[in-house]
């Protein structure tokens, strides 16, 4: 059984207008997304800005109201049962994009990391401190850091504090929304390494949201490509990067700059070719509203929103 199963998720935001600010339309931020994540996997969610990645993530933890669809966590429907959702909150945690704004600058590390503990567990001061110490050790920070404030840490360290906080309740699923895009390459590597490490250690499952395909390839087992609130393709890392089917996926993959200057020309030509293909066959791959069609399976692991044949 999948740890998390999202079925036909729709999140529409009302758009108001006119004299009385009535709802005149909806922004279909997420419009019929389905996927499932297996225990221990890292699932990547990619797409251009505004394609609904964050909204999907937020819906899973309950920060957004869901228009329709179901979210099943360990088989229980989070959308239906309010109490369940609260319990599940312990099991689903988040790592935020910006390590600077995601830690309250006025709180000590101790308070930050202990926050979830205080909410869900009644611990004595001693126990709490002990636990925080443990957690910090787990993310590779020594315990004297407990009484410091976030600004005294570097970006990578801060992101680790965020991770310590996220794993405090021993969650099963961690949603990481662009966890490194605010970091320099050097620091980025640090965090990515570390995320992989604790994944093994704690048997974590990740929903990894990013628009950097390089990182996605590095981290993820399965990948979903989003475009305008819909999936255009889903598959294993290999499926997506080596055998992209949807024109949009192809274009994304082609746009990744190659780190080898020798491939410059080749890459340029390839990109140009894909671009032409994209422009030519756009109307083929998308319906009249410019939205992707429903996914259809290409193999066991690979699905793509290809136009129906015939």
């Amino acid at each position, binding site marked *: 059984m999948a740890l998390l199963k999202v079925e036909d998720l729709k999140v529409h935001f009302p758009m108001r*207008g*006119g*004299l*009385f*600010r009535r709802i005149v339309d909806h922004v279909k931020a997420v419009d019929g997304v389905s996927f499932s994540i297996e225990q221990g996997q890292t699932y990547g969610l990619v797409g251009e800005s505004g394609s609904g990645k964050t909204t999907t993530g937020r819906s899973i933890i309950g920060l957004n109201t869901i228009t329709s669809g179901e979210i099943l966590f360990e088989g229980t429907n989070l959308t239906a049962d309010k109490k369940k959702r609260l319990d599940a909150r312990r099991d689903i945690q988040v790592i935020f994009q910006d390590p600077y704004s995601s830690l309250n600058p006025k709180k000590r590390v101790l308070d930050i990391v202990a926050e979830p503990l205080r909410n869900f567990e009644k611990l004595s001061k001693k126990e709490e401190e002990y636990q925080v110490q443990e957690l910090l050790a787990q993310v590779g920070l020594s315990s004297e850091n407990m009484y410091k404030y976030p600004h005294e840490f570097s970006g990578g360290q801060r992101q680790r504090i965020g991770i310590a906080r996220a794993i405090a309740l021993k969650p099963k699923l961690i949603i990481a929304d662009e966890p490194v895009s605010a970091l320099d390459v050097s620091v980025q590597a640090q965090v990515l390494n570390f995320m992989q490490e604790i994944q093994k250690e704690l048997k974590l499952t990740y929903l990894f949201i990013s628009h950097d395909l390089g990182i996605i390839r590095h981290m993820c087992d399965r990948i979903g490509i989003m475009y305008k609130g819909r999936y255009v393709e889903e598959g294993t890392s290999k499926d997506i990067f080596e055998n992209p089917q949807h024109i949009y996926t192809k274009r994304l993959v082609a746009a990744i700059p190659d780190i080898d200057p020798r491939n410059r020309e080749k890459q340029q030509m390839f990109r140009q070719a894909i671009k032409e293909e994209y422009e030519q066959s756009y109307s083929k791959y998308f319906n009249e509203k410019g939205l992707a069609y429903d996914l259809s399976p290409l193999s066991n692991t690979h699905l793509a929103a290809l136009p129906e044949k015939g």
Partner: protein
Amino acid sequence: MWNFIVRRFIIMIPQIFLLSIIVFIMAQFMPGDPLSGLIGDPDVPQEVIEERREELGLNNAWYIQYRDWIFNALQGDLGKSFTQKVPVVDLIESRFWNTFWLAVLSIFLIYVIAIPLGIISGRWSDTWGDRLITGYTYVGYAAPLFIFGLVMLFVFGFQLGWFPTGGSVTPGLEPGSFEYFLSKVNHMLLPALSIALIGTVSTVQYLRSEIIDTKQKDFVRTVRAKGAPESRIYNKHIFRNSMLPLAALIGFEITTLLSGTIFIESIFSFPGMGQLFFQSIVTRDYSSVTALVLLFGVTAIIGALVADIILSVVDPRIRIK
């Protein structure tokens, strides 16, 4: 933009309605009625007062009174002065234009003072000029208007005798003549200056910090990178952007101005609405007070409306919404 303006208008209606209810309730709580002033006048017996009370509906239930009051108010009848026994509207009417012109002159002076000072101190911040101007704004901010007004009157009116010390015009001049106009301005100048010198400080401060803010905006760097000379950067970009919010301030300025007139007009014996209000308070002429509260309130509501509309006209971000 039209949507915005219309919506803004619609918001105004409940505001005015609420205001009227508050004013009315307030009036009900206030001691006295239009006839209490007659108490102590040996020529008017108590029975006559009672009779008039009945006639004026002062013994009716409150909602009937409210209905009548609002109905009358809509027709421009705001009741009768407690102490002066004439329709409040008449009292106000005679003062209205004086206050209006005083306000116009004050606003004019406020901006005439604020804009150059704000610009100087914002553009050349941290220079001696700026320090001097900020010093002035601090002093102005700390000096209560009424103390300042008293001092102005004392120094320029009494000691130096440069300005008239009361009234709005020299008697006997032909209304409409140039001398009449000059005399009016002459009478308004000292009170308006007093209001402006104090009232301008917040605008100067605002403009200054707005310019300092804008100066550091990234887009200014862009303009500089285009090769625009400093003068153009300031005139075309920084000042324009900084003064936009100022345009909206005019609306709110009206509200502050009106409370300022309460002090200034009574200090300078300037026959305007502010003085009327002050007098009505001192003599507890509550019917005038309520009428003026309503009027000031409505003016403030309209001021806020004007501010929003001005802002929506000048700021494209609101205009389109």
